[in-house]
Each structure stands twice: as structure tokens, then as C-alpha cells.
């Protein structure tokens, strides 16, 4: 797995989304990439995985791996909740799926010409690792104290 050259554009998409929706600043986290599914140091003990297929004109997917602690903060921020009373895993996963959907759309709009339509699939979320090909590319980000990763597969990994 390599660090994607598309990371600066992905950072732009992530930043726009985080800043607009949850008023949170995101920066690139420059740590050497590893196999996130196997490295306990890279993936916090409890993480959420969310993948969205890119259907056309590029083919591939974007997978976000986000610590549950950050997912909780994001969800509370989005809903304006000050405590965890109404938090459920379903609500947290739904919030992360919407973020991933928005980020992937922004990324493709940055990558493709203005006259090029694109199509995304529906996001899939999981509390257990989702499979992704070895020849993927990764971008890592930091939001406050937490870090998270986006793995790009297929055509997106070679940009």
C-alpha cells in the first residue's frame, strides 16, 4: 500500500466537509503508511469502517477507517448533543456514511472535468474490517487528537 498522490485533493474534500458540517479542522497526518487492517498501532481497538463504491467514470472505492471515539464526537457535533444519551451505533454509522458519501463526491468533483458526470454507489458500514485490495493507496488525517484514514482502491489508487 502506498501513500496516494491524490491526498492533497482528498484533504480539500475532507476539510470542506468537516468544516461545513462539524466545524472541525482536519490536517494531513504524515505517518508512514502500513497495512491498516493488521497494524494494531494504526487502527484503534474500536473503529468504524465505511466504504463507498465509485461506479463511473472511474472505478474503485473509498474506504474510511475512523476511531469510534471520533465517530462519537462527530455524531454528537452533527446532532448538537452534549451527552451520549441518544447515541447508538446505528446513528454513528449513519453519520459516518453520510460524511464518506459527501467527501467522495467532493473528491470526484475535484478530480474530474466539470462536464463529466460521475456516479457513486451506496455506502456500506461495518464495525469489523472491510476487505480492500493490497494495491490500494492511503491518506491519513488528523482531527484534533484523533487520526483516521482513507483508503483508495481501483482507479482512485493510481491517480
Amino acid at each position, binding site marked *: 500500500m502506498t501513500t496516494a498522490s491524490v491526498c492533497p485533493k482528498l484533504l480539500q474534500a475532507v476539510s*470542506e*466537509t468537516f468544516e*461545513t*458540517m462539524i466545524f472541525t479542522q482536519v490536517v494531513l497526518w504524515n505517518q508512514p503508511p502500513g497495512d491498516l487492517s493488521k497494524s494494531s498501532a494504526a487502527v484503534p481497538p474500536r473503529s468504524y469502517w465505511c466504504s463507498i463504491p465509485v461506479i463511473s467514470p472511474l472505478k474503485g472505492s473509498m474506504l474510511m477507517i475512523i476511531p469510534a471515539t471520533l465517530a462519537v464526537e462527530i*455524531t454528537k457535533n*452533527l*446532532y*448538537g448533543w452534549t451527552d451520549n444519551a441518544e447515541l447508538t451505533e446505528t*446513528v454513528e454509522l*449513519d*453519520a459516518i*456514511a*453520510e460524511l464518506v*458519501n*459527501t467527501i*467522495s*463526491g*467532493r473528491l*470526484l*468533483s475535484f478530480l*474530474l472535468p*466539470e*462536464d*463529466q*458526470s*460521475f*456516479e*457513486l*454507489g*451506496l455506502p456500506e458500514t461495518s464495525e469489523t474490517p472491510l476487505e480492500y485490495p493490497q494495491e490500494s493507496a492511503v491518506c491519513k488525517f488528523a482531527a484534533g487528537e484523533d487520526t483516521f484514514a482513507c483508503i483508495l482502491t481501483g482507479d482512485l489508487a493510481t491517480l
Partner: protein
Amino acid sequence: MKCILIADDSGMARMFIRRCLEISGCQACEFLEAENGRVALQLLKEKPVDLVVSDLNMPEMNGEELLKRIKSSPRLHEIPVLIITSAANPKKVAELTALHAAAVLNKPVSPASISEALGMLGHQREERP
């Protein structure tokens, strides 16, 4: 009281759009929510709605199909449909505008972008003969 139907498969997105609408002046509006186009159409059959705000990418029936169904319905075609999508670019906006979408907004939406779209809708209505 105006009634606004929000169609999006994400509960979080529906809440976020509703909050943006409320900040943009729709505090007194009644909100209906649907998780896809099929449910939205069902709600439209049951209750008069003044504005539809729909996501594009939804399971079962997507926002484009919902837009087509609304605009081809003699009873519903005058309801303005605001499309909110993460896949908006000038080409997509042109395609959806040709299908009579009132406006197309890129995700993430903000109170400012929703407010601008609502202002444009009001302006379009004033211009109607």
C-alpha cells in the same frame, strides 16, 4: 404553515438538511421525512407538500426518478424540487435542471446555500405570470 418533504436515505442527512432549512427561515414549517423516493411519493399522495428537498443517491428509488415522477404528475408537477447531492457538477446540474429541478445543491449543504436556494425559489415564483 408550509410543509416540506425531505428525502434522503441517511437520517443524519435529513436532520442536517432540516436544521439548515430551519436556520434559513423555515422554523414554523412542518417537515415530512422519507428514506427513499418510493416513500416520498407515498407521502406526497397522502399530504399536500409545498417543497421537496431530495438527495440523488438513494436505494429503491433515487432522487432523479423521484423528480421525474413528480414532474410528470398532473397533481404534483408544480411542487418545486430541490436536489441535494454529493455528485453535483455543471453537467449534472444541467441534466437535473432539464428535468425541472428547481435548484441543485452540492453536499455538504450549509444554511447559507439552502437560504440562497430558497431565495431563488421565491424569486422564481414572483416572476411567474
